């Protein structure tokens, strides 16, 4: 049994699986059931200032993208922060935390971008016994129009300023939740670090319109004939989130800043991938909104088994393990040459690889009259497209050529030594330097 206990920026939990701040964590009833199901922690649905709570739309608030078999791949929402009163939320947080001292209870906050409201709310949160706070600088709709959420998260100076206030007025660990709706995620991350943040979490949702109702001529979800952009999340956003997590993990300035990974995590494997790229805990929203709390059992058993198989004893053994292998394109080895191989025993003769390569790529797959598909080594550039469109796992593989053999496509000998673009003769700057 691997040890899954997690210490994230001083916040402890029995496993790294937390629920992200969202409807699943909007009330005591949900959070208690989540803890019963086995979740290691929660980030409570974002709280706002005292006084009358925000109001949500009363029509549909979600849009969605589906894959085959109506598998939910992407979800978009126009929900705001909690629409329940601050007092009730605080009472509930206190009561849950009292009964679950071993779980992480982090409270997400979003108040106007002024010192006073932050100064006011922090002691109230501290009083609940919560383990930390998360600053919601990410919400891309509704709240941003009011100068909060991603309107703060898109301006590094604001991030730094608010983070500093929080560090000044509370001793709880401060996690800054980042919006992906920017061009370079490293700016906001560095700002959080400079403001004294204990950690960052990302990503919040991505600005999106999921679909258009072609009869009503309105974006969906449609409220009385009109729609607005919402925040996109779910499996579809995972690649974007992974990249942003990696960017922060490998940035010299923020390399040691703990990261809570969020965005499309649906299985133990997704979680392990985030952790390998530097996430010390992971947060899940859409997957539980799709399948319910029980999926955490699979996440725990899967992560545990994988760690045992790999000989990783603790979460720390996993976190950041892939970061050294994330590099810039220019550092990739151009002398590494592979060719696609089709396993004829596994091939079901669908011909998708042929269509992909013949119609759109390098005409490197041949097709015989009896539907045998073969790779033409003299044309194959090992782009991997055939592998990606093949419906049978491991039927097509990419095999590296051994150094010393001939690449039939170029007629050149495969070199053993590493060589990248920075030294390649076709690189204009190399050419210039040689002049």
């Amino acid at each position: 049994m691997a040890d899954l206990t997690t210490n994230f920026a001083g916040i402890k939990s029995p496993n790294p699986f937390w629920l992200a701040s969202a409807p699943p964590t909007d009330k005591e009833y949900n959070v208690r059931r989540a803890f019963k199901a086995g979740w290691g922690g929660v980030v409570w649905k974002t709280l706002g200032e005292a006084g009358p709570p925000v109001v949500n739309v009363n029509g549909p608030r979600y849009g969605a993208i589906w894959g085959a078999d109506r598998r939910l791949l992407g979800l978009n929402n126009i929900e705001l922060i909690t629409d329940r009163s601050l007092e009730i939320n605080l009472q509930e947080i206190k009561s849950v935390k009292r009964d679950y001292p071993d779980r992480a209870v982090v409270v997400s906050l979003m108040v106007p971008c002024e010192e006073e409201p932050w100064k006011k709310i922090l002691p109230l949160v501290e009083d609940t016994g919560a383990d930390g706070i998360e600053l919601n600088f990410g919400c891309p709709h509704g709240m941003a129009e009011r100068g909060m959420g991603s309107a703060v998260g898109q301006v590094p100076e604001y991030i730094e300023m608010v983070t500093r206030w929080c560090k000044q007025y509370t001793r709880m660990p401060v996690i800054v939740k980042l919006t992906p709706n920017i061009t370079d995620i490293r700016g906001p991350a560095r700002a959080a670090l400079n403001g004294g943040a204990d950690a960052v979490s990302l990503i919040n949702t991505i600005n999106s319109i999921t679909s258009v109702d072609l009869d009503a001529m309105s974006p969906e979800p449609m409220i009385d004939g009109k729609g607005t952009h919402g925040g996109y999340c779910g499996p579809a956003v995972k690649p974007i989130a992974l990249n942003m997590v990696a960017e922060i993990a490998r940035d010299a300035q923020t390399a040691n800043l703990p990261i809570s990974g969020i965005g499309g995590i649906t299985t133990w494997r997704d979680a392990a991938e985030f952790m390998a790229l530097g996430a010390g805990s992971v947060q899940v929203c859409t997957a539980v909104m799709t399948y319910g709390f029980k999926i955490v059992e699979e996440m725990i058993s899967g992560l545990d088994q994988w760690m045992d198989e790999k000989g990783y004893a603790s979460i720390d053994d996993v976190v950041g393990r892939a970061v050294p292998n994330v590099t810039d394109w220019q550092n990739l080895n151009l002398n590494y040459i592979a060719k696609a191989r089709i396993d004829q025993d596994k091939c079901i003769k669908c011909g998708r690889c042929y269509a992909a390569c013949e119609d759109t790529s390098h005409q490197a797959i041949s097709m015989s009259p009896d539907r045998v598909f073969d790779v033409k080594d003299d044309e194959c550039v090992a782009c991997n497209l055939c592998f990606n469109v093949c419906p049978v796992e491991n039927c097509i593989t990419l095999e590296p050529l051994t150094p010393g053999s001939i690449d039939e496509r170029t007629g050149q000998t495969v070199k053993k030594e590493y060589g990248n673009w920075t030294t390649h003769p076709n690189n204009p700057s190399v050419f210039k330097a040689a002049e």
Partner: protein
Amino acid sequence: MSNNQQTPGVVAARLSGAELEQNFSDLHAPLDAHEAAVAADRCYFCYDAPCMTACPTTIDIPLFIRQIQTGTPDAAARTIFDQNILGGMCARVCPTETLCEEVCVRETAEGKPVEIGRLQRFATDTLMSKDGHPYGRAEQTGKTVAVVGAGPAGLSCAHRLAMKGHDVVLFDARAKAGGLNEFGIAAYKSVGGFAKAEVDWLMQIGGIRLQGGQALGDNLTIDDLSGDYDAVFLGIGMGGVNALRTDGEDKGNVLDAVDFIEELRQSNDLSTLKIGRNVVVIGGGMTAVDAAVQSKLLGAENVTMVYRRDRNAMGASVYEQDLATSRGVRIIYNAQPAGVHGNGAVAEVEFEYTTQQGGKLSGTGEKFRLPADQLFKAIGQKVTGAPDALKLNGGKIAVTQNGRTSVSGIWAGGDCASGGDDLTVTAVAEGRDAAEDIHAAIS
């Protein structure tokens, strides 16, 4: 000249070795990894899933399928074995069409359920093919429980008790453990000696001592057991067979279907097994179907199954009936035996058509005869050898919810106990639940 399907009488080797091997191979081939991935992907991970409720052992089916989906079949197997330590056998023999798969929402949606049984087999086979046993024992309690009967009920009970730290002495009248898994289940559902391999795998937990060849009743009395052990569990199944009560029943080649099946299951060369050219099977349950189908697979030319009520009343599911007819078995409904004719051995069986009025079955007077070299009786089994001290209910040992019998300190489960539905999986559930109750009672 060698024998063939038309050779008269009761003879061996009607089919070639290759044909026999083909006929008795896996009914449902195991899924390979790709097929399992595709099949698993169809599961919707339903909330409070109906399949879980329909499974007598309440396996968390959506969870184990999700674990297959996410590439961890070993964890999936653990999820299965946590509830059902004979999950490997159940994956092969459960009539899933009337259990989990019947209520699958995809059966409702498109008439094609998620293949739960085959996925369960994929997961359990994956884990069982590895070395070692996935469960350990709790600290030893110093208590010892006698489990009588090493069928699914007894094995499941013994394993759970061993897990809890109790020692178990497992008695069985036969030398070999497994009960009907070993001696009854159709050969094509449990190929490759799986029943024995599963028992060996289960016993690896330790703390279970098998005492084969010791029947309760001979020189082992229930009083001895109650006196010597901290608790007693009875899982002795149904050893008796119901009689036809028809004239001529005592003629030669009139056999109990379960005996025929037992001989077949224990044979290590099917080409030495004799089978009639014309075989008649009386009965409408799983045993009747299994006897009929396996007769056909051995090479009988004509196999007829005769059942006294209609298709819907039959114990065997529609799926099993279709399996029988697809193998060439003819099923005659609404006819009851009226006599067995022949000079010494059976030559013809006489039947009378029946009608049903207000639930009461009566003969119509119209009769017909079927030629028969062999007649197999499969009209139900009954409990024999239940200790006199125990109250019975409908011929079975009367039990309350967790298998408590009328005598304190004695539990019972499986086919010998009242209330179940005579399936392997039910026996496993009852053995397990009794073990939990015994554990609570003696610790």
